[in-house]
């Protein structure tokens, strides 16, 4: 699925600050098969943008295009939800509202009219995919720990079998193992689509951005500041990122520290931790050999 926003802006209708534009002049085209990370300061418009892409809210001006066609408003003038796009909210509490985990899982597909047998089968697969077990089916979602709620929220979205998965800060509050597991499972789901699935991933963790993305979308004050590969963004625009209240991944900090001290810039093909560590160790081994 290709998603496009053309000259889109958004003003919250109930906004008490007079017609404050939470999003301004957004032009972006997201092709199928990409992993896009979204970063930006607090209040820069990331969550608003995600709701716009999913069709939960309609742009105040401009258009949302799905596969080249304008997503028309409903007869009542409301936005039209795009069912092939799954959105995991910033607060999992906002999408878990049933009395048991199982009920939350089957809610979506059941409403789509999918056969119950098939739905139950999917529920069993999805709960496993997010690292939980069927024992969780009868638990009350709101009594789970922070990390468990996240996993269930992701599972409810995957139940709908989306083509595009939008995740709004899915790793906030997860412990390191939990974050790794969630990232890995999203990555597995993404790869299993054979280049047809898209991931849009909001995060404040620059290390996660360096590890996984094809492209990084940088939001600043309701506008798109950059859309670039992680390598080029973090190496060429680190100054601007700091100005925006953002940061660079640890791997970039390491490369820059070495450059400042030793005057050598170590060339790397990506900013992933393993890649950078390998190059850095090789560099110092060589240094040691020369001494």
């Amino acid at each position, binding site marked *: 699925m290709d998603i496009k926003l053309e000259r889109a802006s958004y003003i*919250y209708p*109930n*906004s*008490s*600050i007079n017609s404050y534009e939470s999003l301004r002049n957004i032009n972006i085209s997201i092709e199928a098969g990409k992993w896009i990370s979204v*970063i*930006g*300061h*607090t*209040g820069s418009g*990331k*969550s608003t943008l995600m709701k716009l892409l999913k069709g939960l809210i309609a742009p105040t001006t401009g258009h949302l295009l799905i596969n080249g066609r304008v997503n028309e408003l409903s007869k009542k003038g409301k936005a039209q939800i795009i069912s092939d796009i799954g959105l995991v909210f*910033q*607060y999992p*509490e906002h999408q878990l509202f049933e009395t048991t985990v199982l009920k939350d899982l089957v809610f979506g597909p059941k409403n789509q009219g999918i056969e119950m047998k098939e739905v139950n089968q999917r529920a069993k697969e999805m709960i496993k995919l997010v690292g939980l077990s069927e024992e969780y089916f009868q638990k009350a979602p709101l*009594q789970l*720990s*922070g*990390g*468990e709620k996240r996993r269930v929220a992701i599972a409810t979205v995957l139940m709908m079998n989306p083509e595009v998965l939008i995740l709004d*800060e899915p790793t*906030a*509050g*997860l*412990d*390191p*193992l*939990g974050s790794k597991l969630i990232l890995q499972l999203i990555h597995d789901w993404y790869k299993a689509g054979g280049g047809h699935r898209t991931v849009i991933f909001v995060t*404040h963790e*620059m*290390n996660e951005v360096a590890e996984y993305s094809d492209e990084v979308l940088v939001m600043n004050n309701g506008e798109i500041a950059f859309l670039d590969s992680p390598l080029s963004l973090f190496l060429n625009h680190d100054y601007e990122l*700091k100005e925006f*209240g*953002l*940061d660079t991944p*640890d*791997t970039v*900090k*390491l490369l820059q*520290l*070495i450059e400042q*001290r*030793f005057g050598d810039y170590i060339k790397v093909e990506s900013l992933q*931790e393993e890649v950078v*560590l390998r190059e*850095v*160790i090789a560099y*110092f*081994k060589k*240094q*040691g050999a020369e*001494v």
Partner: protein
Amino acid sequence: MLSFDNVSFAYGQHLVLKNISLQINKGEFLAIVGPNGSGKSNLSKLANGLIQPHLGKVLVDGVITQMPKSLREIRRLVGLIFQNPEDQFITTTVFDEVIFGLENIGVDPDKMKSIAEDALKKVEMLSYKGLEPHKLSGGQKQRVAIAAILAMKPKYIVFDESTAMLDPEGRQNIITLMQQLHTEGITIIHITHHMEEVLVATRVLVLKDGLIVADGTPASIFNNNIESNELEVPLALKLKQRLRSTGIKVPEQVMTLEGVVDYLWTSS
């Protein structure tokens, strides 16, 4: 002093804190780390009497939290910033959110306005004071939750993952704020999953499965307890370990990327 004497806490059959004994002295900057579900938030709720131990007792400056009469005093002494700020909000504007706490502890009404504005200024949320808390972005909510507690001027402040939804600059600002409060004599308890944030603490506690499994300086936790306790392994530590295994002996006490690179430079 905040003191936990043989404290246990359970939900039904599920024991989430197991016979915890812990003394937090005035003036400490304590960081608490540990996996999801290890009991960190429950420990912090015990500290200000929001929940009561099933066994043992919790004392704040010698006052036991189980006494209903002393609860108000305890809430004034120990400020708890909730993990999910939405759980903390009760009023309809950002400003009232801060005022509400002040009313509860009986602050002079003439002074409330300036105290509330000062607190909001500290977290850069003053210009949002007329907005509804629920209509803020995630990070903005978190900052309002912090201001509401700061305004009450507690002697002990527990930050339960207050940096989790902040952007990098916002996160750094909160750490700086904690350090500033600490130099003013306030005891800081900071719960986090980010290892680099614990380096500014004076003491680190590792919780796992309802037990304290390590208690020491940042350096000792950083070098000895990270992997076995499922904590985040920072790049600096990975680099140090890799270098050591290739025969480059970076000293134990080096804990930052700057430190490692500086060591390599001076020793080359």
